[in-house]
């Protein structure tokens, strides 16, 4: 059982021994981006680096986080195959590009291409322990590291035309040979979208790390979105583009199956998936299923975004 340590002690200090030794072993793979070294060595997934100066967050839940092992060996990341347990193995050979840039564009006054080094310095890093609920009916609790997406969006100054935010994930057919529609059943690159007020909400997080370290590839390295009150597939991984737009953007799962996956996809125990109930979920590590919470338990903070909306129609 993970015993919560008093504030100030990082997860890296209570990392299991074998993981700790693995990091030492792969020290040579630490990305140039984070260390400022000259060599553009791309990291393997084992080479997570500790993130410094991470503050506690008021948004954290008191629920117990899942083990690092569970969160890194059970992933829906179809670019690396549709087998949740296989992703960790399939990312082993993947090399993150040494230079990573997120293009922030569209209806903004100050579009920019921001590098991962700049993102990490954009705002004070917080550790936010969020619940994460997959549409399939399982959930985890993850101590993400990052800050509100609004910090970035404020900087680029959305114009009055901007009503939505579109997101796009990294896609390279050569480096990700499994990222094909005929293998995964979805189209690539993976795209997602939020309404502007959802994107500007303080809970919506631009995430650069977890468990005290940078993100491993299977969890969306080097930067991803985390929207805790929506089903997990909306928390798009490995961001390369953020575009402000006036119309509702296409989203991958909605394109794959509009009847089953809507634009909003708010966690809602009263609105079932057409083929299965959303009333309960299995928290990884627990035997019995538990009741699913409206908005994944974040209703106090986000329910007002949907006042007057029929959530059965806008699923």
């Amino acid at each position, binding site marked *: 059982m993970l015993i919560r340590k008093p504030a100030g002690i990082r997860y890296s200090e209570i990392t299991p021994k074998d993981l700790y030794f693995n990091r030492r072993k792969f020290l040579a793979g630490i990305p140039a981006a984070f260390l400022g070294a000259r060599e553009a060595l791309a990291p393997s997934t084992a080479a997570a680096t500790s993130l410094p100066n991470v503050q506690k967050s008021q948004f954290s839940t008191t629920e117990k986080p899942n083990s690092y092992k569970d969160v890194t060996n059970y992933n829906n990341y179809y670019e690396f195959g549709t087998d*949740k347990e296989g992703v960790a193995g399939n990312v082993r050979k993947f090399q993150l590009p040494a230079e990573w840039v997120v293009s922030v564009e569209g209806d903004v006054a100050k579009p920019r291409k921001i590098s991962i080094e700049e993102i990490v310095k954009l705002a004070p890093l917080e550790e936010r322990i969020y619940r994460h609920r997959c549409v399939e009916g399982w959930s985890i609790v993850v101590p993400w590291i990052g800050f509100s997406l609004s910090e970035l969006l404020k900087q680029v100054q959305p114009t009055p035309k901007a009503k939505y935010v579109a997101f796009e994930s990294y896609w390279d057919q050569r480096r990700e040979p499994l990222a094909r529609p005929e293998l*995964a059943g979805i189209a690539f690159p993976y795209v997602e979208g939020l309404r502007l007020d959802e994107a500007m909400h303080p809970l919506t997080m631009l995430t650069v790390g977890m468990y005290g370290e940078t993100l491993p590839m299977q969890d969306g390295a080097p930067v991803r979105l985390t929207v805790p009150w929506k089903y997990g597939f909306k928390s798009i991984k490995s961001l390369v583009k953020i575009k402000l737009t006036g119309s509702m953007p296409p989203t991958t799962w909605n394109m794959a199956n509009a009847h089953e996956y809507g634009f909003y996809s708010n966690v809602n125990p009263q609105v*079932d998936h057409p083929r*299965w109930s959303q009333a309960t979920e299995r928290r990884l590590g627990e035997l019995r*299923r538990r009741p699913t919470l409206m908005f994944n338990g974040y209703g106090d903070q986000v329910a007002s975004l949907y006042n007057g909306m029929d959530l059965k129609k806008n699923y």
Partner: protein
Amino acid sequence: MLRKRWLKIVLFLLCLVPCLYLAWRAWNQDLTANPVEYITHFTGDWTIRFLVFTLAITPLRKTLKLPDLIRFRRMLGLFAFFYGCLHFSTYLVVDKFFDFHEIVADVAKRRFITVGFTGFVLMIPLAVTSTAGWIRRMGGRRWQLLHRLVYASAVAGVIHYYWLVKSDIRLPLLYGFLVGILLAFRAVASLLNRRPAAVPVRTPLRDNP
């Protein structure tokens, strides 16, 4: 060769291997981050696989002219039922904790559970009447008709699989294809049997010079 007694024992042990593998992984606490899901999928996979093996016996024995293969069909069928029981009880006991109210709601609401449950229930009378005693009691013809329910069970299993996957339909399609050709073989064979003797029929008299 196929009549050797030890062959049945070897086959029996082979059929147990998936179950033993699962037990070994459980022993090593290596059941992935979501053990209930893993066990459910694993036992479900082996249920449909054993159904395919069982359905393959007759086409194989006809095309390879190895009538002795029939000796193994009952065992394979019963193992399909065995893994089906494991699959269903994982759902019943571990997922639902015997909450029958929830289970009834599930069977009614989640189509893929309805069809899966149907496929499982259809196997029960087949398992019960699998013995030679029952063939005698029912008479060969009636017994054979009853046991055609295995076709429905296999089809239900494929649909169950197809309806539960999110987007990657390759495995359900593969099993569908396999069940499809195994059933098609029987359909074609039965059609050929019904045709009048325009096709020359070999009789012992004609074969012996």
